[in-house]
């Protein structure tokens, strides 16, 4: 009997222990320890942490650089989420509208997703620094002649453009997967009832696509809140820290200024904001879901 229990425990451990171990090492322990760190005072990385109460959170709340980067990130997230989903959905509709070479368009529009944000940032740096000014010069288009990355506002929009360009193809694929599940007979019934293609899209297709939107909005939200690579390689936060997103601000605080406690307090504030926004988004999205 005892042997049997041991054997059963052994077999259970075999199946779940590896995941429990790696998940704890990578996520659970750092998360818990990270919370603990925010309540500790650490003048340097190697000094023993001393309990400091809310001192790090107070410093984080007073850190104007943190809040300006947070505000910039929120603006960036709002614009990117809308543009990526609108463009992704529009492309999905175009690609599935019965055109020839459907696969060709689908395949090529997905390519930007294959490449990491860091490399994409460098590629687009070439475009914003060399190509567009040359283009503007040649055809006398003023907006392109300016060096976009040297201007605070234009550099922000450069980040938005590259992000939308990168993510729209991925969301398009998810929307295509969703469009396939919209039942043909429902669309036909709407046509017989006299709905034109615009009405069919708004009143039939879009509501049925709600589950796809819940996923794509969640993915773009989380992705854009965490943006770092493109930010780092395209603008490096410049000019004069005007495009520094929250993620880069935290990396700088922690690893350039060695202020782990305060950096982590800011990271926890970021976590709370992301969790709250995406939690509400998924809740609202799921609540009104229609069953086809």
């Amino acid at each position, binding site marked *: 009997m005892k042997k049997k229990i041991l054997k059963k425990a052994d077999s259970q451990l075999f199946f779940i222990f590896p995941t429990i171990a790696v998940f704890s090492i*990578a996520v659970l322990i750092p998360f818990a320890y990270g919370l603990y760190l925010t309540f500790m005072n650490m003048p340097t990385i190697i000094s023993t942490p001393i309990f400091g109460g809310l001192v790090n959170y107070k410093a984080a709340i007073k850190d104007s650089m943190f809040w300006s980067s947070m505000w910039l990130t929120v603006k960036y997230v709002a614009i990117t989420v809308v543009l990526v989903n609108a463009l992704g959905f529009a492309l999905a509709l175009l690609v599935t509208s019965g055109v020839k070479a459907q696969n060709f368009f689908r395949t090529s529009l997905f390519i930007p997703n294959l490449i990491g944000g860091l490399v994409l940032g460098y590629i687009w740096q070439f475009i914003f620094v060399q190509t567009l000014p040359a283009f503007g010069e040649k055809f006398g288009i003023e907006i392109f002649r300016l060096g976009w990355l040297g201007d605070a506002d234009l550099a922000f929009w450069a980040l938005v453009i590259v992000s939308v360009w990168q993510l729209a193809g991925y969301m398009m694929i998810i929307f295509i997967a969703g469009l396939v599940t919209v039942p043909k007979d429902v669309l036909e019934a709407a046509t017989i009832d006299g709905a034109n293609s615009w009405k069919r899209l708004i009143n039939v297709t879009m509501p049925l696509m709600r589950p796809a939107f819940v996923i794509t909005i969640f993915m773009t939200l989380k992705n854009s809140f965490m943006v770092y690579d493109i930010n780092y390689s395209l603008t490096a936060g410049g000019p004069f820290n005007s495009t520094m997103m929250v993620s880069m601000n935290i990396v700088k605080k922690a690893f350039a200024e060695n202020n782990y406690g305060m950096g982590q307090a800011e990271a926890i504030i970021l976590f709370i904001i992301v969790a709250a926004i995406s939690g509400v988004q998924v809740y609202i999205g799921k609540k009104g879901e229609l069953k086809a």
Partner: protein
Amino acid sequence: MSNTKLIKRILTYMSLVFTFVIFTFPFFLMIVNSFKTNGEILQSPFSLPHSLNFSHFIEVINKMNFSVSFMNSLLITVLSTILIVLFSSMTAYYLVRNNNRFSKIFFSVLVASMIIPFQSLMIPLIYIYGARLNLIDTIPIPLLIILYAGFGSALTVFFYHGFIKSIPIELEEAALLDGCTRRQTFFKIVFPMLTPTSLTVTILNVMWIWNDYLLPSLILSKENLYTMPIKMKVFNGTYMNNWELLIPALLLTIIPILVVYFIAQRKIIEGVMHGAIK
């Protein structure tokens, strides 16, 4: 075909072709300019090169120590993905087939953890495994692989969980009655049936790990351990604005994943689609 239909069709094609041009233009620019000298690039970035001059590619391959960082990226991506697929499928199988209280709690914790941004974990990660345990200096690559296995497990278990639920239990029961152990049943009967999901999660994890920059940049400090994105960042720092070298370097960095994509594009697109439906 009626007139409005024809116009609609033409507009559809025009917008698709326009988007296609915009989406692929950056790659076109990279290819065209990779054969030019700095002077030619500055003069006219759009024109076709005079000749197919590969000398900059060769220079970059030598200067970048390209093969070393390629092998590092490959090793880290392959090993991490194998661990994720193996561990997560086993765990999801256990969680579905033993639907007790522990399983429910563990699964909820995994799903909830997907909302945690990496930025909220990276400082404690560096503090614990660097400053405290010194693993970043002693075993950086194994540490990185284990961290990837941990970060990838939540989403991957979630995918397998959804798929295993739809597999009838009868086959496994028959195998168990025939004297198979649970391990044998899993590896010989269940795991092969999971192949479509395994393919999807492999694609998603490989795309993420291969391109990841922030985590490896915090953990790999020795140059001979750099992955390709870190190498590219360092190269960009050394040859700032020296486009005749930077462009071939960027192209070389993206070619491996593009080659894989052109060979397996159907599977990759399908994988992303499957990944989204759940």
